[in-house]
């Protein structure tokens, strides 16, 4: 296991790389869901406030 984590000496570069990329991926998921939630909340507010404007 320790050998695996050490990655032949490249650990200091390898694990941060994986962390950054997977971190960006997770960030995208969270960000996307939040932006959808915000849009839904805004739509709800608009409907409650004035009904659909045409």
């Amino acid at each position, binding site marked *: 296991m320790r050998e695996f984590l050490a990655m032949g000496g490249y650990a200091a570069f390898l694990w941060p790389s994986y962390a950054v990329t997977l971190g960006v991926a997770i960030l995208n998921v969270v960000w*996307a869901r939040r932006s959808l939630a915000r849009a839904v909340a805004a739509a709800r507010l608009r409907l409650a406030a004035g009904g659909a*404007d045409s």
Partner: protein
Amino acid sequence: MSWTWFHRLGSPPHIYRLAEQLTPWFAWPAAALILAALYGGLVLAPPDYQQGDGFRIIYVHAPAAWMSLMVYTTMAVAAAVALIWRMKVAHAVAASCAPIGASFTVAALVTGSLWGEPMWGTWWEWDPRLTSELILLFLYLGYMGLRGAIEDPQRADRTSAVLAVVGIVNVPIIHYSVTWWNSLHQAPSVMRLGKPQLSMPMLWPLLMMLLGFTLFFVAVLLVRLRGEILVRERSASWIREVVET
């Protein structure tokens, strides 16, 4: 040939529902592929004879770089469709792409730099690929900056669409000129962002990663797309039933 299917694609309520239904069909396979590829790349694949275990950074750097370019292309194609056929949904697709692409471009730059340090001995080199990625980041930032600077949402959509199309035409030109520039100053072979010779056991995890991230992109895009459609469909009555469930 009936083009109804194409024009249906332009119908926001239809797309909204389709996006909602399709998301899990992309999200779960994406997760599975990425996890399998991680195992394949980190555990199963043998170390490279030149770069040792260091080459394994390719399993995150290559997908990030691939995403940065693929997403920009998708954004530009959506922008072109939006301009030509005047489809609001296409504008929504383009808008959804930008933050995804920009964040992966940053990831590509960071992982590229991290890969480079042990190989080159410096944290940054004006390697043609890294330089092109940096320029791509500026293209994304410009697009997002332009969108943000225009108040009228329709004008913002259409103006940034023109920029996206202009950008994509430029990407090959920029890449060519950067490669040309780099080759002039005879960068020694060690400078090129290490492309190890990939045997089959090393290659398949990479391909799985690329496919997995592509599916991941579609899944995230579908989620963002729904929000972007809602924002553009202020007056529609179909929103009521969607939003209140």
